[in-house]
C-alpha cells in the first residue's frame, strides 16, 4: 500500500468503550438453509472490522442483517442502543444512522450526482435543500469529485461511482458505515482510489465494518479481522496475528489461497 505513514497512525485511532453494534446468538435461514449460525459480535465505537471468507460463507448476509436489508429469525441485534425488531420505526431509525456501500454502487441513475447525495437528507432528515447541497458538496470534495456534481452516474467511471456512493452515505451523517465488497466490481486501477477514501474515513474515527478481500487494506486499517466460513465466525484476531499465525485449518487454507499467488 502506498500510504506507509498510516501504519504508525493506526494505533492512535481511538476506540471507545461505547458499544456501537451488539449481535447476540443470531441465526438466519433461507428456507431450510441455515446461512448464519450463532453469530456473536460486539463492535465498539471507532472500531474498524474487516470480514473475509470464501463466497457463500454468509459475510454479506451478516452485514445486511445489521441494517435490516435481510431479516434474521433468531437472536438479537442492537445498533446504537436501538434494538432491531420488526418495528418499522426502529428499522428506519437504524437505517438512517447506518450508512451502506454496495458492490455495484447502486446509485440512482435518473438523478444527478448532487441529487443522489441530497435526496435522503432532504426527505428523511428534512434538511432544507440549500443546506443539503452544501453538505453534499463538502463530502463530494472529500471524495475528490466535486466537479462531477451535475453529471449522471452513468457518465462516471466505476471508481468515481463508488466514491459518490460513499459520499451519498456520508451525507446522512451516519455513525456506522457498512461496506459490502466495495472494490469487487472495480478495475485494478480504480480500487486504490476507493480504498484511499475508505482509509481516510477510518482515520477520522468512523466505525466501519467491511466485507472485502483486500488484505492490504485489512492489514493497514483494520483493528480486527473476522474470518467466516459456512455461516459461522471461525476466527477473529488482530490483523498482524491473524495473517502471521492463523489458528484454524480452514483459515490457513483460505489465506494460503488468496495470499499464495
Amino acid at each position, binding site marked *: 500500500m502506498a500510504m506507509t505513514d498510516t501504519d504508525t497512525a493506526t494505533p492512535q485511532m481511538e476506540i471507545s468503550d461505547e458499544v456501537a453494534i451488539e449481535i447476540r446468538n443470531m441465526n438466519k435461514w433461507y428456507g431450510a438453509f441455515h446461512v448464519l449460525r450463532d453469530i456473536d459480535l460486539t463492535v465498539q465505537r471507532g472500531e474498524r472490522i474487516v470480514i473475509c471468507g470464501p463466497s457463500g460463507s454468509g459475510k454479506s448476509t451478516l452485514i445486511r442483517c445489521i*441494517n*435490516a*436489508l435481510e431479516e434474521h429469525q433468531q437472536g438479537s441485534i442492537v445498533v446504537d442502543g436501538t434494538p432491531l425488531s420488526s418495528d*418499522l420505526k426502529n428499522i*428506519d431509525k437504524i*437505517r*438512517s444512522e*447506518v*450508512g*451502506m456501500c*454496495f458492490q*455495484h454502487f*447502486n*446509485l*440512482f*441513475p*435518473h438523478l444527478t450526482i448532487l441529487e443522489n447525495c441530497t*435526496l*435522503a437528507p432532504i*426527505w*428523511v432528515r428534512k434538511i432544507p435543500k440549500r443546506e443539503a447541497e452544501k453538505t453534499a458538496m463538502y463530502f463530494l470534495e472529500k471524495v475528490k469529485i466535486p466537479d462531477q456534481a451535475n453529471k*449522471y*452516474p*452513468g*457518465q462516471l467511471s466505476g471508481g468515481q461511482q463508488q466514491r459518490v456512493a460513499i459520499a*451519498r*452515505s456520508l451525507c*446522512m451523517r451516519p455513525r456506522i458505515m457498512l461496506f459490502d465488497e466495495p472494490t469487487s466490481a472495480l478495475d485494478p486501477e480504480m480500487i486504490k482510489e476507493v480504498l484511499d477514501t475508505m482509509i481516510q474515513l477510518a482515520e477520522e474515527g468512523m466505525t466501519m465494518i467491511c466485507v472485502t478481500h483486500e488484505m492490504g487494506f485489512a492489514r493497514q486499517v483494520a483493528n480486527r479481522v473476522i474470518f467466516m466460513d459456512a455461516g459461522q465466525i471461525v476466527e477473529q484476531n488482530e490483523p498482524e496475528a491473524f495473517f502471521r499465525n492463523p489458528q484454524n485449518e480452514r483459515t490457513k487454507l483460505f489465506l494460503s489461497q488468496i495470499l499464495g499467488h
Partner: protein
Amino acid sequence: MSDTHAESVAFVRESVIPPAPPPARETGAVRWLRENLFATWFNAILTLVALYVLWVLLSGLVPWVVNGTWQGSSLAECREILQGNGGGCFSVLRERWPQLLFGFQYPDYLRWRPVLAFFLLFVAVPPALFIMFLPRWTLIVTAIYPFLAYWLIWGGTILTPLFAALGFLAGYLAFSIVERRGFVLGLAAGLLAAVAVWWFGGLLAGEFPRFARLEAVVSRAMGGFMLNLILGIVCVSLSLPFGILLALGRQSRLPVVKGFCVVFIEFVRGVPLITLLFVANVVLAFFLPPDANFDLILRVIIMITLFASAYIAEVIRGGLAALPKGQYEAADSLGLDYAQAMRLIILPQALKISIPGIVNVAVGLFKDTTLVSVISMFDLVGMIRGPILASTAWAGIYWELWAAACIMFFTVCYGISQYSQWLERQLHTDHR
C-alpha cells in the same frame, strides 16, 4: 514505422498517433441509388415492383383527391357534378362535419362551448406534459381544467363542478394533515372530508340550480369525435394512476392487497371490452333503482378505465421487474420509507422503462373508444354507420367518410406516439 524500432522484436511506442478524420466517403445521388436501390439484380427487381405498386396507388388516389368535389347536398347531386371523373365526393364532409364532430343532438348554437373546451386543452395539457420546462405552479391550470371543461360541455350550474373540485381539495388537505398519525387514518379522513363537501355541494346545487348557469346538455346528446376525445382523454388520465396503484399492489407483501390486485387484473384482462360496455349499458341498469341518475357516459368511463388500468398495471409491473434489486436496497439503506422510495426512486425509473408499453395501451384505448358505437352511443364511428349512412341523401358513400375518420384518429394517435418518443429522449439520462 519511423518512430518505432522496426528491426527489434520488443516494441516500445515513443509517440502517440494523432487522431485522424475518417476516410472521405464517396457521396452523390448516383452512388446512393446504386447502393440502396440497385445493389443486386434481385434488389433492382424489388425496386421496380415497388415503384409499380406506388404508381398504381397514386394513380387512384391523386385523381380522387384532385378531381373531388365539395359541392352538392346528396350523393346523387354529387355524382352529377363529378360525371364519372373518378373524384371523391367530399361534399358529405362539408355538409355533415358538425355531426361528425359533435354528434347529431348537440345544440348547434352551443357548439362554441366544446370548441372552447378543446382549445383550452392546449393550455391545460402542456404543464403536465412539459413540466421540465415550466414552473410547477402551472400544474394548477391542469388541475382546474377537467372541472372547467365539464362545465363548458355539459353546462348547468357552476356549483356542481366547483364543489367537485373543492371536494378533492378538502380530501387532500384532510389527508395531508391526518397522514402523520398513520397512512390509513389519513386516507379515511381524506375520503370523509371529500364526501362531506360533495354532499354539501350536491345540496347547494339542488337549491340554486340557476347560479352561474350555462344551458345544460344531457349526456345522450354527446357524440361525434368529441365523444371519442372525451372518453379517450378522461380514461387515459384516470387509468394511469389506477394502473400504478394496481401494479404496486400486485407487488405488495400484504396478501389481501396482493390477492385483490391479482384477481382484478386477471379478471378484467380476461374479458372483452365489449362485454364490459354491455354490462355498463344494460346490466347495471337492472341493479340500480329505476330513477337512479347514473349517467351513461360516466358508466362507460368507469368500465373503460377499469379495463385500461389492468393493462397499464401489467405494463408497469414489467418496468418494476426490470429494475435491479439494488435500487430498492439503496433506497432502504438510506432510510427512505416505502412511499418515498416508490415516489422518488422506483417509479420514476420504472415508468420511464414502461413508456412504450403505456403509450401502446393509451393509443389502443383511444381507438377502442369507438366500440361505444355498439351500445348505441353516436361517436364518430357510430355517427357514420348510423345517421349519416342511413340517410337517404348519403347512403352508399363510404371512402370519403372512413378516410376522414382515419385521418382524425391518426392525427391524435401519431401525436401521442411522437410525444412519447420525445419524452424518452428527454429522460435518457442513464447512458447505458
